[in-house]
């Protein structure tokens, strides 16, 4: 494991440059948030900048750029599972999982009880009640099948 001093010095230069880029991207992230972008645009741009920064940290500080294949394979596996994890809220019955006006009902305290609905403090969410019940039935079936 003998690394030559010159190689290391070249690495050091890389680290300094990457740090400068990361600092600049941090400032850019904050600056972009002041632009009045639509929500999907804002999310896309913010995640793009964050991913770039994360990529730089991973490739250069964590030395992923000259790491062995097995690490890439391991990370690819992690990415697959992470993508599955992220797709659960964005792709699965999202329209039915209405939690009611959690923000305002918590502010006013007992809005849910006032409306007479114990779960979803708004009678307009009756549809989501049915949706959740269906959910429950499906889960039950899955568990039944598993055993």
């Amino acid at each position, binding site marked *: 494991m003998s690394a030559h001093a010159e190689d290391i010095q070249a690495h050091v230069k890389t680290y300094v440059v990457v*740090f400068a880029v990361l600092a600049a991207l941090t400032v850019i992230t904050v600056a972009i948030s002041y632009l009045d972008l639509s929500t999907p645009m804002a999310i896309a741009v*913010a995640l793009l900048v964050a991913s770039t920064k994360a990529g730089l940290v*991973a490739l250069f*500080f964590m030395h992923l750029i000259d790491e062995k294949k097995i690490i890439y394979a391991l990370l690819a596996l992690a990415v697959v599972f992470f993508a599955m994890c992220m797709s659960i809220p*964005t792709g699965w019955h999202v329209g039915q999982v209405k*939690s009611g006006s959690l923000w305002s009902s918590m502010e006013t305290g007992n809005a849910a009880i006032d409306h007479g609905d114990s779960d979803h403090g708004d009678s307009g969410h009756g549809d989501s009640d049915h949706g959740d019940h269906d959910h429950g039935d499906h889960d039950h079936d899955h568990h039944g099948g598993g055993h």
Partner: protein
Amino acid sequence: MEIPHVVEVHPETGIANAKLGLWLFLASEVMLFGALFSSYILLRVAAVEWPQGSTILNVPMATFNTLVLIASSVTVVMSWVSLKLNDFAKYRVYMGITIACAFIFLIVKYFEYTAKFDHGLSPATSTFLAIYFTITGLHAIHIIGGIVVNGYLLGPGARMWKTDPEQFTGRVEAAGLYWHFVDLVWIFLFPVLYLL
């Protein structure tokens, strides 16, 4: 009993066991924070109202914290470089700065949290604050863990530099990998919670 391939590479994987083990651990940590991020997405998409982070949270303080953590990532890799170049004194300096940056981050977080509590805002106040405190709290616990490990490697653990410098360098590299991951999580946390 000696654990094999801690320093020399394993013939089949091509890397030391310690490094493989640490990357495996980081993969599991990705899922841990991934679960919380995915909860955030679900909660936000399902909510009728959701505040923009900058209206409730302190963006300048968090920006400063982001730069502090990025700097600490540089210094931790520089501490490993110093060991590679056989400069133990420099290693101590860089590792010391890394730990100092970690403390600065926690101190700023302390001021952020107490500012919320002083205004009567707590995790129970709203879903947004609940997920904010949960995810940044878990991240802060990871920072504390990093301080403990890095502190050990700066203090009593540094004795190994005399007996087995290669293994010690490997330990510093592994600790550095963990520290970079903690930085990575914050790089995503900051825009998601504070700016969006």
